[in-house]
């Protein structure tokens, strides 16, 4: 349970922290203007953006602090555990792709993703898990000529 103003304030503080980290990086002597820059440093535009970023974050923080006093807390209609599970499975998929190859990683991903999220009908589950990645592999490899990561155990797939 969080007020919208509180949520904005937390986000704005996070945003201010990011902009300060970027500002610290932009102030390094490495970025000073050289002869090839014709007087306009390569960091001129990024610095301008960082300052605008900082000002906007401060304005959002101010607005959030004003708003929080007049609001009632509202419940966020999102189950974070489910979203986090999804994120972790996708991370695992991305990690496994270069190790197992596209096809095997996709089969493993599909089976685990659909099982974790409660899909139980076996026939569609197997069809989607085994045939859909195979179809994509065929389209990319033979029709679009895009090489996909291959597994160490098979010749091309």
């Amino acid at each position, binding site marked *: 349970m969080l007020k919208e103003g509180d949520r904005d304030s937390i986000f704005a503080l996070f945003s201010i922290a990011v902009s300060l980290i970027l500002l610290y990086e932009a102030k390094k002597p490495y970025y000073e203007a050289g002869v090839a820059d014709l007087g306009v440093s390569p960091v001129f535009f990024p610095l301008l953006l960082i300052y605008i*970023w900082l000002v906007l974050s401060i304005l959002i923080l101010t607005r959030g602090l004003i708003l929080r006093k007049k609001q009632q807390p509202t419940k966020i209609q999102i189950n974070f555990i489910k979203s986090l599970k999804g*994120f972790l499975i*996708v991370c695992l998929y*991305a990690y496994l792709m270069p190790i197992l190859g596209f096809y095997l990683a996709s089969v493993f991903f599909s089976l685990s993703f659909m099982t974790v*999220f409660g899909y139980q009908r076996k026939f569609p589950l197997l069809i989607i898990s085994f045939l859909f990645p195979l179809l994509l592999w065929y389209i990319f490899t033979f029709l679009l000529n895009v090489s996909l990561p291959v597994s160490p155990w098979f010749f091309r797939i």
Partner: protein
Amino acid sequence: MDYIFSVVGTALTIPSLLAILVGTVFGLIFGILPGLGSVLAISIALPFTFTMDIMSSISLMLAIYCSSVYGGSLSAILINTPGTPQSATTMFDGYPMTLQGKADLAIGWATGASLFGGLFSVSILMFAAPQLAKFALKFGPEETFALICLALTCIAGVSGGSILKGLLSGVIGLFLAVIGTDSMSGSSRFDYGIFELAAGVELIPVLVGVFALTEVFWRLGEKIPKTPMNELKGGFRLAPFKEWALRWRTLIKSSIIGSLVGILPGTGAATASFISYSEAKRSGRFRENIGKGEPEGIIASEASNNAVTGGALVPTLALGIPGDPVTAVMMSALIIQGIQPGVRLFADHGPLMHSVFFALIICNIFMFFSGVFAARFVIKILKIPETLLLNMVLILSLLGAFSVSGRLFDLIIVLIAGLGGFILRMANVPLAPVVIGLVLGPIFEESLRQGLIINDGNITKFFSFNHPIALILIFTTLAIILKITYKELFDSLKNKESK
């Protein structure tokens, strides 16, 4: 005559027609399924265009764009849930017609109005884009800089939610574009010693992460009630010409509204349909029945949202400034094919652009017939289990992002962008300005730095009477920023005092 045959011939090749057919079906499915929509469809399809010829790749994108906008109306009519936000107003009269047992007729009205709106907007595009490009040939770096400032402010301003957050979102996008090697000095910026970042942040992985992954993570966690669909039946029936003739005024007025709103950066089809629907409610012939199952409401909504497709392409093609994420992706598709949208586009690639206009007409016709055939299968499409669907979207998204450059590093970018997009969405920050900022970033920086070099580093010369267009554009931008910032802070203070 030979020129016309050549233009039509380029658009009517077998690969182009096949691309239109596939794009229409793909876009229609993504439009019908609530929550997916045009941006997701077009970002997933983009990697497939890399090895296609120019005409086929543009045709695929255009077909997806048109049919995904239209597809949203089918679910709005049948299950009272718009497939895309732009069809929200279609629901107000479409669903009551379904309850009256006239779903097939409602789909007929929506399909006919979408076709008319789409074709009307092509004619606007054909007329306006070359003229605008001709006018914009006078633009120097100062004017380009000022124009992008105004476009980004408008996009951030109307993306929904707080305008301050919209502007911040645009700044984040612009900042992502500066990461990597500076094109003017050759020095690397903000790469933190990561070799892969020296080449910059690619658009596609960010786009896929911000739109596809964020949407999937959101939907996985979202608590939404399911709509019962067992009793529903789709179908297609076109009303007699006499009925259409009674509502011609709304049809034309809505098409004009849609085309004009489409030209304005950041507004989009949802805004157009709401304006048009309100206008029909105010001045339509059957205004007293609108909201109770009156076809005039469907016409107003559907003609305007499909008319946006052509309108939105006007600034994208003529100025190289996309007004929304969909046209931003389409612009990247053109850039990948070696065509730079902007003021020189019509001078350098005139015949190709005329073929594109013709392809857009074909896309609208295909969209009409796909609607006729798909109407009876809509319920089957809507019954696809969400887990299966999200699983396929994730595989397609990661594969698409990887195939751009074949770098596994891009998968990391996708994941970071997905997580970042989720955090921004949690904080009610609009996501569209991030992508548009990333697309416009390089041109924006280049025009600013070129302008500074020309004017001896004096930025005030940008706003002098030597550059009246830039002056007007910058003052308009500043006025908008000041007004919205003041309004947001003042409104929150006023609310506090009244409490």
